[in-house]
């Protein structure tokens, strides 16, 4: 039996059209309350349109554009409530699809107002109609069944019978040849991933896969536009309008009833074949848990994400943290901050056998001061407060390399995400040559934030960037004011930004980075260096693990992306002395494989690794 009351209050059962019109939004919002669940189902963000809150924009896994969903109305037909929704797809300006969408839509996409208008698309119906790709329909018969349908043409075609030309500086240019397609949009394949995500969310909250699937086809006209404004329609057999209807049964033991058509189109049943056998909505749910809508039943046991935040006093760590906490708190995520400084007051508590002191508990965060053992403190904080993020904040005195080896014991209980270093644009340049500890902080960082950029000349920032690049060519570099940067922009949705190779927008110290020349030697007076390695063959998971665990403690970090064994997918590799973490890469792109070695003598480590590889090469070619 499906408990609709989890989604909508009891009175909705007696108002079928109200329930039908609210169910998609209620389902989408409720699954988005839980980060692990929304990730797993395929959601990558959602927001209500500010001026039309029943409409929403959303991002889903695997698609670069933004979807829009807008209710179009609802009716009661006998005892069934029927609601319809329009589905829109607003492509990213870099998508190939821009070559297949109408010129009018293309002009909107490259206009200044595109993202503003998209966020509130129901306010601009003319604009939005250019991006309308499908309809969704929901029929709800209380105590009986619920049917969710996607209705979209395979392709939407518009032919410019007289062609389309533009007068440019280079003369008259033909944009669309006579009788050519101005629009040939693959509506079905654009709309289906969104529909699949919505339907999977339904299956998840209902704890049931659909009991019936029906595919129907009708004719979809191609529009023929003439320069005089006349528009004709022709129907082509190869381009149907398709309707995919999924039915969930609300009571056990009932058989699905095929519903009557409510529109004038001539629907014919079609054979879905095996096309939808692998659809995500069919996934059986894990039964048996008392609270079904829970991470463990989804197989999602997220570990707290660990960020090590370094930087000298006054570099802006506190303001960065307050922005970070605010951002996460507004998403129902909880942050624990541990300040890794043993203060004078901490000594009394240490005598009492405590490992940390709670300094502050606030909106979305707990802030603790470390008293004694860091790993024990982290363990206790994690079990007591179940944070989503754990931030270990260190000031100028701590060497992050030591910290990393200390944290290696926690590899099974934390997801190692980032070493982030704050650098003060105003004073950092002067401090950098004088403090080896600051150089070390930069050397081991994944991300360096140059803060207070509003207080210095741009030339000074460029200089500082070169200095940072010289110490760590592989970190990502950002400029901030008052520590204010969106964590999503900084780390990416799943921290995938931390695992990729940084863009080499700045050449370190003016020399080419594959042959550090004589000029660079001055940067190497200190023992820690970083070096990039690219695989020339495959290595197995065990081999990599054994190799990394065998490294001397003078190699502080090894991180990067690799394909292991014969797997197609990428693995994120995180190593600190005597600890290795290998987790699947969750980014949507396909970046190059690499490892970065940070420590004293990375060349020797790389030589060891290369010594393992040739053997593999032979095996693979054999």
């Amino acid at each position, binding site marked *: 039996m499906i408990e609709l009351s989890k989604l909508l209050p009891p009175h909705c059962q007696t108002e079928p059209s109200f329930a039908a019109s609210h169910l998609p939004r209620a389902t989408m919002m409720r699954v988005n*309350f839980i980060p692990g669940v929304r990730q797993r189902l395929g959601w990558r963000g959602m927001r209500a349109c500010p001026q039309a809150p029943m409409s929403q924009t959303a991002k889903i896994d695997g698609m670069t554009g933004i979807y829009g969903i807008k209710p179009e109305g609802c009716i009661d037909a006998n005892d069934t409530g029927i609601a319809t929704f329009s589905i829109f797809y607003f492509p990213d300006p870099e998508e190939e699809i821009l070559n297949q969408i*109408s010129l009018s839509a293309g002009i909107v996409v490259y206009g200044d107002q595109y993202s503003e208008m998209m966020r509130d698309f129901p306010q601009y119906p003319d604009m939005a109609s250019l991006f309308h790709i499908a309809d969704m329909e929901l029929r709800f018969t209380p105590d009986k069944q619920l049917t969710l349908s996607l209705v979209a043409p395979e392709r939407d075609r518009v032919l410019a019978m007289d062609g389309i030309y533009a007068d440019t500086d280079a003369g008259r240019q033909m944009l669309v040849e006579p009788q050519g397609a101005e629009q*040939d949009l693959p509506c079905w394949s654009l709309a289906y991933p969104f529909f699949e995500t919505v339907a999977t969310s339904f299956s998840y909250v209902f704890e049931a896969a659909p009991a019936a699937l029906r595919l129907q086809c009708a004719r979809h006209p191609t529009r023929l*536009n003439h320069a005089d404004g006349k528009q004709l329609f022709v129907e082509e057999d190869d381009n149907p309008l398709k309707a995919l209807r999924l039915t969930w049964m609300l009571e056990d033991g009932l058989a699905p009833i095929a519903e009557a058509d409510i529109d004038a189109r001539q629907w014919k049943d079609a054979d879905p074949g095996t096309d939808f056998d692998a659809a995500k909505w069919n996934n059986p749910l894990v039964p048996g848990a008392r609270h079904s809508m829970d991470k463990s039943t989804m197989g999602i046991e997220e570990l707290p994400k660990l960020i090590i935040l370094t930087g000298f006093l006054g570099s802006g760590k506190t303001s960065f943290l307050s922005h970070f906490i605010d951002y996460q708190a507004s998403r129902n995520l909880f942050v624990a901050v541990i300040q890794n400084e043993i203060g004078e007051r901490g000594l009394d508590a240490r005598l009492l056998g405590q490992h940390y002191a709670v300094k502050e508990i606030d*909106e979305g965060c707990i802030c603790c001061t470390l008293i004694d053992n860091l790993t024990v403190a982290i363990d206790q904080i994690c079990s007591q407060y179940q944070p989503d993020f754990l931030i270990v904040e260190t000031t100028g005195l701590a060497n992050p390399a030591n910290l990393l080896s200390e944290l290696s014991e926690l590899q099974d209980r934390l997801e190692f995400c980032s070493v982030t270093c704050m650098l003060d644009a105003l004073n950092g340049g002067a401090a950098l040559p004088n403090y080896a500890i600051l150089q070390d902080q930069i050397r081991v960082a994944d991300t360096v934030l140059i803060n207070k950029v509003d207080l210095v000349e741009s030339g000074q920032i460029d200089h500082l960037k070169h200095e940072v690049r010289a110490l760590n060519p592989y970190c990502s570099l950002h400029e901030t004011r008052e520590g204010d940067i969106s964590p999503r922009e900084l780390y990416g949705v799943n921290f995938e930004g931390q695992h990729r190779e940084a863009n080499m927008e700045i050449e370190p110290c003016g020399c080419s980075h594959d042959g550090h020349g004589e000029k660079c030697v001055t940067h190497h007076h200190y023992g820690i260096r970083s070096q990039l390695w690219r695989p020339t063959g495959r290595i197995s998971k065990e081999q990599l693990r054994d190799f990394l665990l065998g490294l001397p403690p003078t190699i502080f970090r090894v991180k990067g992306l690799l394909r292991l064994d014969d797997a197609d997918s990428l693995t994120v590799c995180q190593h600190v002395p005597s600890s290795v973490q290998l987790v699947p890469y969750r980014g949507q792109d396909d970046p190059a494989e690499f490892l970065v070695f940070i420590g004293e003598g990375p060349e020797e480590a790389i030589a060891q690794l290369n010594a393992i590889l040739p053997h593999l090469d032979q095996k693979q070619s054999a």
Partner: protein
Amino acid sequence: MTTSFDRRTFLKGTTTGVGLGLFGAMGLYSYSSLRESFLPQVKRKMNDIGVLKSVNVTNISETSWFENAILMGDIKKAGGLLVNQYDYNWPPFGNGKGLGKGSYAEGIAKIKPYLPHDLEKAWEVISANTVSTDNAGGYAALLDIEEMDGTKRKFLLDSGWSYKWMDESFKREGIDKMLENKEIEALIISHEHFDHFWGLPVTLKYDPEITIYIPEGFYEEGKQYIKDSGHKGKVIEVKNGLNKIIPGLATYVFPIPIICRVFGEQSIYCNVKDKGLVSVTGCCHQGIIQFAETAYTELAYEKDNFYGIYGGLHISPFDDWDPKYDDLVISLKNYDFDVIGCNHCTGLVCANKFIQAGYPVVRGTAKHRSKDTAYLGNGDQIKFG
């Protein structure tokens, strides 16, 4: 496609350089959508809710719980944000079986004999049977309205959570006497959440006959709790949309899904003569932007001005597809409120951002366990008009 060039490249150049005029008469058609919608659209209109002279809001308590970490830990350990709030075993509904294993029926059975007259005894029983008992606080506010003819009227918004904390807070602000003297004509419940609604017996202890407005969307447990708490007055279930209560004061119910299996929030609009619209909210789960937009499209108000705000300004938890727009601070600027009094679920960091951004935030005194002067804290007042 039959075109041999990259359309993107061409269009990029067009929109940034030459402009769109060049398409002029070259056969660029305007489009209608794939097909017209075949179901009718609902028409909406502006509503006159009347005017009042002034509204004074007293913050009885904005501290819904004392330690967020404990609350979040409980929610996670019980199974997450979709778990039915009556199952947590939080006060007052405890069966002694531990976190996430509670039920309304078992919890209420233990305390019903003491409701609403003996809350001390009830709280003893509750302390023995619930989890995180001392973490409960509550949200409640008093609205003092002056009508145009000088008549004074009082409304209570929400009744908090912990019987103990709310009774202390009511006494501190003199709410107990106002209720006993029948000076408060109605209790408006913003939504069914534990921290706004479960302290109901504290109001009923002093005035069991009080009229209660609840938003449409309450679950059976919630409706039963009103009866089980010893309420003897009228319960008005407000339908989604606008509900006029007295001249110049209306509530609006938003059909919005909320965490812990709650649905629907009721917020208050006051139309203050010569000043403009004042919004008083519980949590504002619908989002302040939606709340303000609804007022804009549905209400007529003085000088067409957004005058003031009091209460929680809940930030939408899902706005993550575009990092550029994830900041409520930016969005709020568009509404140009004259007075902002925020607290509760707004988030202290957010409130401090409002102050940094130069918004007219009314500072609090950080008394009675309120934490920061960026909030209108417990016992603070704000007058609109």
